[in-house]
């Protein structure tokens, strides 16, 4: 019989991936809340989860539902904010390992595209799994991710991508 790891092990193993996914889907400002709500819900449900379940896909599924709630809430109250000028300055200085232009471009994509990109490219889930989380079929999930990559490519000058 498979034994269930402690929840501490779960946070240690998957906390990082879930935070990346949250940042990509709801943006940096709301990512901490999305992460916290995800893991609190997961902890509540954990004793009932099947011991052989795919834990990462399960966590991303919960994160998806929390993100959808947050996107719905912010869409109701917020107006899009202009990019603060200092972000461009940071980008010009070529800060290592971070590309605010790209993070910003990602947030301008429609939610479904952000989700498809996050679940496939950041969580590493196959499109069948991505489709199961988002609803719809794998071909649609693949198309949403491809559209996202195409728009990101158009919105970013080639010299802004650091290898």
């Amino acid at each position, binding site marked *: 019989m498979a*034994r*269930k*790891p*402690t*929840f*501490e092990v779960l*946070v240690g193993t998957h*906390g*990082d991936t879930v*935070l*990346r996914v949250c*940042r*990509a889907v709801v943006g940096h400002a709301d990512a*901490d809340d999305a*992460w*916290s709500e995800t*893991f*609190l819900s997961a*902890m*509540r449900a*954990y*004793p009932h989860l099947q011991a052989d379940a795919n834990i990462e896909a399960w966590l991303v599924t919960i994160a998806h539902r929390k993100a959808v709630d947050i996107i719905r809430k912010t869409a109701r109250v917020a107006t899009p904010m202009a990019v603060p000028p200092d972000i461009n300055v940071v980008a010009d200085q070529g800060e290592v*390992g*971070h*590309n*605010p232009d*790209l*993070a910003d471009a*990602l947030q301008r994509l429609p939610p479904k595209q952000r989700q498809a*990109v996050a679940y496939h*490219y*950041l969580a590493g889930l196959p499109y069948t799994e991505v489709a199961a989380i988002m609803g719809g079929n794998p071909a649609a999930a693949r198309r949403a991710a491809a559209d996202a*990559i195409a728009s*990101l*490519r158009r919105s*970013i000058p*080639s010299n802004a*991508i*650091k*290898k």
Partner: protein
Amino acid sequence: MITEHDLTNSLVRSVATNADDISRLHDRLAAAAEADGLLEVAYRTIDTPVGSLLLAATELGLVRVAYANEDHEVVLQALADQISPRILHSAQRLDETARELDEYFARRRHSFDIALDWRLSKGFRSDVLHALPGIGYGHTASYGTVAQLAGNPKAVRAVGSACATNPLPVIVPCHRVVRSDGAMGGYLGGVEAKRLLLDLEAAA
């Protein structure tokens, strides 16, 4: 032209996290779980003269103390199997236990005043462990004497196995149980740890 590979790599970097982010969110989760009654087992480790001790507590009280030689990861997995997998590192619930152990190792405390959760000991073994705090600080008792104290004078070997599987060593003083010929006898934390605890108590 940017390749898809470069773009996705850059995408991963744009949401890069660091250890501080996760550590901060972890602590926030532990506090929220505690507030919602979801933190079934909280644990932390402390450094002591007998090595790193794992301390774990349920909402009822301290449920497990483990020496490093038991392998803390193995002990935590056993707690997940026996009690609940809702286990997080969280120092707060164990602050008082850690403070009292510090005082004990500094020879400023002779007995512990913390709530204990006895669920990991059953039957006669539990009777034995409940009898142990009756052996005062700085004193020792033989396995035979403890068998009497626990209400079954013939169960000398069972006293030995109760001590060897004590889920709350140091706090429940199985280190004060020695052989009737005066030899120290074994100890679940290793004989050096037993020697250190007996010397520490004798010196006070």
